[in-house]
């Protein structure tokens, strides 16, 4: 029986919705779609976020608990898994939509809280401490005394266009996506426009590649379309090399079908009949979502041979990368898809003229492709109306680090970074002081306090020597040591350097060595080691300049960026490490010394029993002391002491 209704649904959606000739659908059809969308639910609907961030915070168990609750209480209701809403601090997010009322959004609903929360909601005893707000909608009754979530700065200051669907529907259901207008734009595009026209529209919209370079997407497509060839390829780069960013995978999890639609349109625009999604290795949840979504699209005939009798063929495959940072670079990515070591090649020829297997290839980032269906549906003028003179539309950022509210955000181009750090992120955790904002991951730079008023804009940022990068944004506060932070990035790049050209392979190694010397514990201050350390420091800047000038690919050229930018803006921190052998954030293990305050120590022995190197001595109920020579500076004693008797300097 169930099978039958599902087939009925599929036929209905294909025949009455996707293949419907005019833009407006008949009233009956719209009514049925509205039911699929749950616009006006007749039974309570419980939405549980289930993106990676939510799963890590425990949403799987929470969803199971909600299902159990609905069954046990005999409530006629539905539990729906959705993508993530954005704020990682609120995960797992649970929304409850009672018939006729506004949707309520709750935060941090772990398994144990589900029952009391739902009891409260159903029996009109609102659990206020877990409540974020109500999501306003016309046609529903508003709750009294409950704030609207659009008034909360985290949401108010964003412009959620690409993220429009994330968190609102079940990303594993193609039916819901189609009911929300999905895939109709793609079919309209292949029916009404030629390849050139699609490229034109996207070019006119001013959409620029979101992976960092900022090249006009429509123009790039045109280059590929105009290269004579029997076959072309479209690659969706979901590699997301930045170790601190989860933006592409997050949005891919929350709305996989829009990405597929974007790929379909882009592939049509360049006349490609195969597309590859190059996904980062070790992302089990996004991979599973994407596989399901692709299978559903193929079943609906949206991909495959002769797509819904249009004569256009497209095959989309997922290729998981094998773990190499450098494969985010276009030519290295292509080499890796051809089954070779992912090493960059000299450009030109650009991939748009000779790419995968020597055929014209366009490589677009996830965020870029997510914008395409929106541009085709609302028109280029709609897109041009958002943003600044040179940068149109919105930009996704994966806000990480020490902000109070972090997660996936989307802002209109032209928004200042101060709005992001002070408004959206709502300041720093635990009342600490802001130090700097890091943009663009291991190839990126620092945005200092005085540069925070710069807007998100490709041209203005590059005038100030800042690269937009792909969307990693890390808020750094006073508890983070910048020397250590730069060393972390250098260690990452050094491990990931492909080894093809010497400046990058050797340069990153030497820079890492020197940086490690700076943060290492001095064995003795009078030996040759001290001289070597000073010598190394003098050379750091030279190495950085040589690497920037002579490396083959973007990875090597940008690898010294975090160091150069940190040294230019926070030179005093480096000098303190080198001359005073002191780390002001007390992070560098080698440079901090711990001691026990005899006044405060009660002799409870906890620190001595936890010390991994047995460097703490003493008699029970007498003050203990730390042997400095043995201490490795791990800080465990500092963390475990209940009486704040351990001090660090």
């Amino acid at each position: 029986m169930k099978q039958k209704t599902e087939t009925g649904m599929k036929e209905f959606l294909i025949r009455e919705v996707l293949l419907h000739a005019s833009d407006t659908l008949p009233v009956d059809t719209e009514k049925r779609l509205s039911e699929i969308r749950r616009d006006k639910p007749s039974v309570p609907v419980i939405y549980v976020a289930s993106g990676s961030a939510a799963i890590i915070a425990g949403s799987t168990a929470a969803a199971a608990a909600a299902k159990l609750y609905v069954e046990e209480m005999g409530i006629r209701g539905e539990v729906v898994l959705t993508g993530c809403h954005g704020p990682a601090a609120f995960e797992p997010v649970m929304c409850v939509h009672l018939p006729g009322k506004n949707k309520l959004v709750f935060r941090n609903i772990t398994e144990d809280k589900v029952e009391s929360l739902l009891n409260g909601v159903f029996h009109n005893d609102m659990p206020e401490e877990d409540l974020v707000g109500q999501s306003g909608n016309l046609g529903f009754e508003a709750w009294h005394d409950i704030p609207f979530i659009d008034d909360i700065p985290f949401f108010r200051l964003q412009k959620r266009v690409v993220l429009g669907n994330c968190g609102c529907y079940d990303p594993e259901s193609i039916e819901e996506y189609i009911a929300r207008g999905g895939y109709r734009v793609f079919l309209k595009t292949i029916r009404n426009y030629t390849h050139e026209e699609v490229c034109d529209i996207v070019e006119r919209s001013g959409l620029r590649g979101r992976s960092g370079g900022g090249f006009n997407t429509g123009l790039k497509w045109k280059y590929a379309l105009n290269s004579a060839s029997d076959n072309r390829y479209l690659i969706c780069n979901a590699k997301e090399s930045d170790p601190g960013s989860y933006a592409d995978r997050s949005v891919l999890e929350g709305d996989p079908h829009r990405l597929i639609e974007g790929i379909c349109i882009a592939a049509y625009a360049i006349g490609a009949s195969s597309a590859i999604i190059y996904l980062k290795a070790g992302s089990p949840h996004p991979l599973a979502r994407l596989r399901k979504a692709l299978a559903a699209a193929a079943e609906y005939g949206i991909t495959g041979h002769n797509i819904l009798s249009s004569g256009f063929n497209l095959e989309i495959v997922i290729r998981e990368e094998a773990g190499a940072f450098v494969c985010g670079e276009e030519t290295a990515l292509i080499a890796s898809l051809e089954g070779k070591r992912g090493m960059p090649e000299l450009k030109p020829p650009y991939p748009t003229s000779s790419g995968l297997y020597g055929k014209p290839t366009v490589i677009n980032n996830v965020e870029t492709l997510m914008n395409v269906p929106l541009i085709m549906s609302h028109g280029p003028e709609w897109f041009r109306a958002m943003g600044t003179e040179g940068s149109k539309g919105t930009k996704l950022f994966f806000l990480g680090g020490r902000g109070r509210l972090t997660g996936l955000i989307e802002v209109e181009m032209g928004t200042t970074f101060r709005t992001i750090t002070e408004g959206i992120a709502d300041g720093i955790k635990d009342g600490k002081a802001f130090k700097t904002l890091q943009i663009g991951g291991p190839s990126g730079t620092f945005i200092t306090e005085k540069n925070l008023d710069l807007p998100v804009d490709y041209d203005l940022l590059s005038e100030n020597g800042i690269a937009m990068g792909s969307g990693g944004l890390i808020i750094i506060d006073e508890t983070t040591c910048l020397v250590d932070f730069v060393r972390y990035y250098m260690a990452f790049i050094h491990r990931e350097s492909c080894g093809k050209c010497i400046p990058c392979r050797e340069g990153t190694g030497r820079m890492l060595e020197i940086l490690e010397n700076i943060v290492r514990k001095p064995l003795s201050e009078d030996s040759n080691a001290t001289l070597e350390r000073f010598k190394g420091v003098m050379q750091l800047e030279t190495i950085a300049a040589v690497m920037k000038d002579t490396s083959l690919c973007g990875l090597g050229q940008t690898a010294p960026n975090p160091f150069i930018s940190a040294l230019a803006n926070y030179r005093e921190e480096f000098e303190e490490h080198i001359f005073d052998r002191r780390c002001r954030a007390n992070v560098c293990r080698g440079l901090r010394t711990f001691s026990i305050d005899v006044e405060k120590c009660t002799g409870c022995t906890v620190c001595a029993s936890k010390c991994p190197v047995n460097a703490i001595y003493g008699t029970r109920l007498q003050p203990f002391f730390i042997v400095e020579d043995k201490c490795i500076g791990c800080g465990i004693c500092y963390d475990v002491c209940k009486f704040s008797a351990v001090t660090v300097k």
Partner: protein
Amino acid sequence: MSKIEEILSRYREGSHENLIPILQDVQEFEGYLSENAIVSIGRFLHMSTTKIYGLATFYDRFRFIPEGRIHLRICNGTTCFINGSGGVAAAVKEVLGIEPGQTTRDGRFSYELTACMGGCNEGPVIYVNGKYSTHIRPDDIPEMIAKLKALPDLK
């Protein structure tokens, strides 16, 4: 037909471009890339095993020794790093006595450092036995590993 042969039969003989997916499939099945598997892949693709090793060692994800029966994935994404994942990784190294990518002698434990897993507000995050542990501090590690050791060993 062995499982390796079955995996190979999904691909076209001699198709060099399929080397990475084949290696990924084999590793998914075996847990690592054994010498035997690499020899069979070489025969099938008409490639020398040196070339295959050359490629496989280039990429991070391939391993040549079996993973431990308990495998820890420690997030070393940027946010987890500034929240102290470096200390957590050092504590794991201290307790297990192995480097990332290695396996303990009894074949029980191995661990790796990964890029961002997406749980930035919960960091540092460790993924083990299908469960995420969040807000880990270095001094939680000895206890955590002792608990894992106390579990029945699935040999």
